């Protein structure tokens, strides 16, 4: 479904991605783990067209995304929960969610999806008319995830969704991810620091170091890998 | 003889050519170009071509100082300009030091001539106090008004006129200044100040400023059915005023150089302007045209030395677009008679 082949990306003179190749098949959950500054965020940004690779190709269902504008990439069915949440601070929670469904025309379905996310995160429905900027950190994270869900993407890119969330909610988030993957067939590309949880929900995983992919395998295998254990699982 | 032919007579033209006051400076450029062209077509002055150095001073003193230095460097013998009194003050010192004279079509500050500080300055326009004096005596003696509102456009020309008028009225004692205030040029609406004039029961307004604001003030006054008399100066004595203000302009008084409609030079000047630039001449065009004529004539008579030109200017009378002109010792134009005009049936008619 999504294929990055030998992607290189730069920030000015700093090379953030070195020959990164990643393949995501339809219906799969894959996770990308790695230390701070490894280049995970950059990888996701290059998929959604915010960072432009200097070389290499990003293919989404036989379409080369290298030159496609970000809004067209969204229209193609990719939705991205970026690092740092990026809630619209002066729009209300409701309006933030509406914008999630910006490209959708099926009003009735949008309404059911809205009910669905409010059910997932009841606190959001309580805060419905509050400006997004005044939410607590965790509430903002919930809103960011919900907003992406509202787009009903076929491919969901998530950058550290568990950041700043209470343990109870973290568990819940990962359950939800599994659930929408199973029920709606949404493909998920997950970047996480909480490698243990991520690998448990994902089918396959990639490990990134200093901008390069150093390891990839089924997540059950990675969970047992000594190197991964010591570096990322903290055991 | 050969030498002289090779050496053009260098003349500076300085004033606001960009920015908000450009419309008062550019007509002078056109006038200078027209007159220079006329001379050059006839073989120049004593065989030398006239070469113009046109420099923008945006009507700002410090820019004018630079402009003046530039013109000095260019080797001009005389300058037509500047347009605003402030810029003129700032430039004159530089000219004086380099033996260059300036002849302005529009700088009206009394001090320019009356202080005696600037023997190199001449002008083809009356100073503020002369015009103001005329407006006030006309209002008091002829129109016999008791309550006068004095308005101005806050520029140095308009405010100078208005302040002089106010002082004359107060000194005279027969009438009372009921409102003294400024309007903002380019403001969208003047009804507040008009309402105030209405409230004050003024019989007449003396306005110092230019025609764009005047036409709007008069227009809005007549719209309200006010028949307050309106007296202004040469900034308003311009046919554009009649065209913009339309019927509201009927009855408006303005002082201005005498005898222009019948003046063949003025008629010809306007016609040449239309031919060359395809539009009506703008403010101070005739004064500038007169300045150029007087200056070139003086050079023809007195040569290109400072002494020669200034003497010639003071001692010869020339027919110009503002009438026959000769300059007095201080640099004001003698013989530019001033008269009061009134708009009657869509044109300015000289009274008396």
């Amino acid at each position, binding site marked *: 479904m999504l294929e990055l082949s030998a992607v290189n990306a730069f920030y000015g003179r700093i090379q953030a991605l070195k020959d990164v190749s990643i393949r995501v098949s339809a219906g799969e959950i894959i996770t990308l783990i790695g230390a701070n500054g490894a280049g995970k965020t950059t990888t996701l940004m290059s998929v959604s*067209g915010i960072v432009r690779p200097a070389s290499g190709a990003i293919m989404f269902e036989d379409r080369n995304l290298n030159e496609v504008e970000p809004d067209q990439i969204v229209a193609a069915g990719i939705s991205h929960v970026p690092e740092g949440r990026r809630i*619209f601070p002066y729009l209300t929670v409701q309006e933030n969610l509406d*914008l999630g469904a910006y*490209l959708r025309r099926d009003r009735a379905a949008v309404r059911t999806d809205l009910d669905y996310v409010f059910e997932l995160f009841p606190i959001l429905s309580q805060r419905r008319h509050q400006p997004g900027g005044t939410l607590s950190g965790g509430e903002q994270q919930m809103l960011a995830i919900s907003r992406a869900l509202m787009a009903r993407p076929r491919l969901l890119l998530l950058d550290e969704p568990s950041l700043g969330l209470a343990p109870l909610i973290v568990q819940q988030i990962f359950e939800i991810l599994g659930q929408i993957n199973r029920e709606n067939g949404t493909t998920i590309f997950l970047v996480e620091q909480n490698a243990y949880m991520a690998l448990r929900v994902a089918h396959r995983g990639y490990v990134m170091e200093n901008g390069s992919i150093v390891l990839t395998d089924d997540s059950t295998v990675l969970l047992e890998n000594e190197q991964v254990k010591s570096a990322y699982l903290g055991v | 003889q050969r030498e002289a032919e090779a050496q053009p007579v260098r003349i500076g033209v300085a004033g606001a050519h960009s920015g*908000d006051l450009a*419309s008062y400076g550019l007509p002078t450029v056109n006038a200078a170009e027209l007159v220079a062209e006329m001379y050059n077509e006839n073989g120049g002055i004593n065989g030398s071509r006239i070469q113009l150095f046109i420099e923008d001073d945006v009507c700002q003193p410090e820019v004018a100082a630079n402009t003046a230095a530039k013109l000095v460097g260019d080797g001009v013998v005389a300058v037509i300009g500047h347009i605003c009194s402030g810029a003129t003050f700032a430039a004159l010192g530089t000219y004086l030091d380099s033996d260059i004279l300036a002849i302005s079509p529009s700088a009206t500050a009394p001090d320019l001539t009356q202080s005696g500080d600037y023997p190199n300055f001449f002008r083809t326009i009356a100073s503020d106090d002369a015009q103001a004096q005329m407006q006030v005596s006309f209002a008091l003696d002829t129109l016999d008004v008791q309550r006068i509102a004095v308005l101005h456009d806050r520029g140095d020309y308009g405010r100078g006129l208005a302040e002089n008028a106010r002082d004359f009225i107060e000194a005279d004692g027969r009438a009372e200044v009921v409102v003294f205030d400024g309007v903002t040029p380019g403001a969208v609406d003047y009804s507040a100040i008009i309402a105030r004039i209405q409230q004050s029961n003024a019989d007449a307004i003396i306005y110092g400023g230019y025609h764009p604001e005047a036409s*709007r003030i008069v227009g809005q006054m007549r719209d309200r059915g006010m028949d307050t008399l309106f007296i202004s100066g040469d900034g308003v004595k311009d046919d554009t005023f009649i065209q913009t203000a339309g019927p509201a302009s009927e009855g408006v008084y303005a002082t201005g150089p005498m005898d222009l409609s019948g003046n063949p030079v003025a008629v010809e000047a306007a016609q040449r302007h239309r031919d060359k630039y395809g539009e009506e001449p703008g403010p101070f065009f005739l004064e500038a045209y007169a300045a150029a004529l007087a200056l070139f004539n003086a050079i023809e008579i007195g040569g290109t030395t400072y002494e020669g030109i200034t003497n010639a200017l003071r001692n010869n009378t020339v027919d110009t677009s503002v009438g026959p002109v000769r300059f007095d010792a201080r640099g004001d134009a003698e013989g530019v008679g001033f008269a009061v005009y009134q708009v009657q049936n869509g044109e300015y008619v000289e009274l008396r």
Partner: protein
Amino acid sequence: MNYFLGLFVSGLTRGSIYALLALGYTMVYGIIELINFAHGEIYMIGAFTALILASVLSIAGLDAISILVIASLVAMIYSAAYGFTMEKIAYKPVRNSQRLSALISAIGMSLFLQNYVRLAQTSNFLPFPTLIPRLGFLQQLTFQVTSAQFVIFVTTTVVMILLTLLIKFSRVGKSMRAASQDKTMAMLLGVNVNRVIALTFVIGSATAALGGVLISSFTGQINFYIGFMAGIKAFVAAVLGGIGSIPGAVLGSFVLGWTESFGAGYISSDYEDVFAFAILVLILIFKPSGLLGRPENKKV
């Protein structure tokens, strides 16, 4: 009392005039946080286009109403095109740089357009034809309201309501607000940010042109410089009302208009602009984000 009413109407007129310009200002500011110094120039170009068109049409022998309608429409289309082009040339390339670069670019644009019109047309004032017909029912009021004043006021109100609805409730409006707060995120949600910004300029410029036609019919004359001071006043009004807020721009304009006309009427018209600027300072001291502006989100 009549005097007071007169001043009131005068303030209302000024206010409506400022508002027509402030609306565009505030929209553009709202989306790219740019003090668009050239907005006044767009208004001036609208007025010139209308003047040129009206002259051509009146020679062609059309009646006043058709001239008004056609001239306004064409002026709006042209100004919108100018706004659009200006954004592409002068603002889009600096969008991702420091904010002040765009401001300087706007100042350059303003100078350029002023002189462009001065050179191509004239530096002199030109009488602007009275395009607005006389409205009979206004004569019956006890105080003086001219047709132009009335039409300007009504137009301002209508435009304000339409724009408010557009921004608050329409999809486009939501995307405008989103783009104004976080362009990257808006893109990530599928908003074509370039198009949204261009559209904002188009709408803002068309409003300015409408203002240009109506205001010039009221003032009766135009030249290449009318945009500058009007632009500054509109900017003051927009800030006074809370920049970025559509109703704020209108409220700010009225406050400004009344301050000026009452100040001029009761104190001195010499200091009219001083009152205008003083009220601005005063209001901002007590309400740092303007009358209807959104307060700073202080969440830490």
